[in-house]
């Protein structure tokens, strides 16, 4: 358990200001105060605010000033959807402007290079855990070869690939296997019908060993790219939480992480239908270069046109970010590199980046590339990255 983890309720600060703290609470407060200068600053600001009131005047001139700055440096009146490939240097110019505008001039750090204080953080590797129908667990890595038989289907694992081949006629009940990819992992799987699946970090796929019946149905949590083998008689369905996708034969990417509020499905080739498990009549049909977004909280499905490359680039060994904010970028990177990322300043989450990076670089290299275009500092301690 890291040492800097005292959590206080605002009530303690409130009581401190009103001089009604108990001894125990005083101790807790001191502990919290000592853990970071930002905590001390917060207390000072709170006290100042309660005694003197707000520093903010709602004078129109001040609002006008802020608007002018926003207009000139932050808001573009026309967005260019087609030209997505902006070179990193051009993006750096735009980002730099926003950075100097948003950050108060007194606090700019001038060392953008990652400070490496621990082991080198390596990129993900091809690894997965396979759970057979009988519950037996097998570790799959690039260095092990495995041949198994589950109810008449041969399962071969060699290198980073898991392949299923139907051998005998189908058994009476459907048998399921589950493939789990940990953080820092990726894997490739070929199902019994020839469908190819690329699986990203923190992903679980549950699928029947053989596809009997009149449909092919699998369950996904996480992210995967599917190249579905064509079979008009047996539509292929992917269940992710409340979303179901139905395809005939096509190529698409699904991003459905449990902690995210949205499920994204991006279609490359073919045609798919996206709908809710319990309400199949509400559906979206996607054509190539279209992406559906399911809002889990609101239970809506919307769709937009996209350039699919940025959403499937991971399968090709690259990270592609198109005007993506650093908060989201770090979410993606932290899964692949299996690290924890902490932002010291809220404003940093919103800095946007555009770029195309190799997935198999060390994390330090990736951070260096990102850090180069900006005034920020990365501090690496074992598996925790702090951005200031």
């Amino acid at each position, binding site marked *: 358990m890291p040492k800097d*983890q*005292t*959590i*206080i*309720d*605002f*009530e303690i*600060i*409130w009581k401190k200001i009103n001089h009604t703290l108990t001894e125990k609470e005083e101790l807790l407060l001191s502990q*919290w105060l000592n*853990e*970071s200068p*930002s*905590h001390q*600053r*917060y207390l000072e*600001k*709170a006290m*100042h*605010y*309660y005694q*003197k*009131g*707000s*520093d*903010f005047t*709602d004078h*129109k001139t001040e*609002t*006008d000033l*802020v*608007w002018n700055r*926003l*207009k000139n440096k*932050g*808001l*573009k*009146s*026309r*967005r260019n959807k087609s030209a997505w490939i902006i070179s990193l240097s051009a993006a750096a110019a735009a980002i730099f402007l*926003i950075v100097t505008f*948003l*950050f*108060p001039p007194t606090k700019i750090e001038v060392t953008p290079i990652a400070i490496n204080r621990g082991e080198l953080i390596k990129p993900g590797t091809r690894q997965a855990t396979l759970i057979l129908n009988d519950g037996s667990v097998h570790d799959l890595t690039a260095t092990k070869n495995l041949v198994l038989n589950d109810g008449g289907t041969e399962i071969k694992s060699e290198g980073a690939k898991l392949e299923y081949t139907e051998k005998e006629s189908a058994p009476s009940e459907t048998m399921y296997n589950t493939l789990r990819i940990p953080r820092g992992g990726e894997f490739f799987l070929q199902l019994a019908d020839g469908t190819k699946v690329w699986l990203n970090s923190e992903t679980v796929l549950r699928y029947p060993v053989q596809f009997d019946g009149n449909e092919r149905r699998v369950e996904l949590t996480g992210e995967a790219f599917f190249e579905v083998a064509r079979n008009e008689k047996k539509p292929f369905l992917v269940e992710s939480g409340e979303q179901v996708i139905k395809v005939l034969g096509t190529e698409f990417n699904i991003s459905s992480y449990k902690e995210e509020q949205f499920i994204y499905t991006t279609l490359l080739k073919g045609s798919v239908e996206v709908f809710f498990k319990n309400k199949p009549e509400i559906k979206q049909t996607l054509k190539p270069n279209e992406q559906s*977004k399911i*809002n889990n909280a*609101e239970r*809506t499905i*919307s769709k*937009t046109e996209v350039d699919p490359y940025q959403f499937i680039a991971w399968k090709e060994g690259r990270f592609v970010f198109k*005007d993506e*904010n650093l908060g989201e970028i770090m979410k993606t990177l932290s899964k692949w590199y299996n690290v924890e990322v*902490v*932002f*010291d300043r*809220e*404003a940093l989450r*919103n800095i946007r980046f555009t770029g195309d990076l190799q997935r198999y670089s060390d994390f330090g290299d990736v951070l260096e590339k990102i850090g180069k275009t900006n005034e920020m500092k990365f501090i690496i301690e074992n598996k925790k990255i702090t951005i200031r």
Partner: protein
Amino acid sequence: MQIEDKLLFNEIKNRNLKVYEALFNDYYPHLVRFAEGYLFDKQECEDIIQNLFIHFWENADKISLDHSVRSYFFQSVKNRCLNHLRDLNIRDRHNLLYLEGLLNVGEYSEFQNPEIIIHINAAIAQLPEQMAKIFKLKYLEGKKISEIAQINQITENTVKTQLLRAKGKLRKLLTETTSLNFFF
């Protein structure tokens, strides 16, 4: 969603800068005050809200609004403030900060909870007469400090002091009653 909000939202999605400017002028001061109730740091609040305006402008076509543009902004600011506080290891289980934000905003309609409004009004009624008058002029009618000073024939400093004391009393009144349960 009301028709006015649908129209407003459409204009923003169509990148009507003039409309966005009008929206900005209308919301910005209130949002900063609201955020100040959580973070107490004017600069930090301004950063958060400016980022939000940029984010909204650039992602308008991907955002779906529940109630109104106004409530979206207030909700977003609140979430961002809470995230910031989480990073500081501060929680607000008793909704003291939420209350602070509310008192700063003055127009309670978007907070969908009539109980709060009743309690706040009841608390205001318990203030000394002139204090209550000044508080309402500022927070319920949105008058500027200079205007309030003029209307009441007192100095701006007096107005500021009265407001500060009013907020202090209201905070005490509202947190001491068990009605904290109604705040979410």
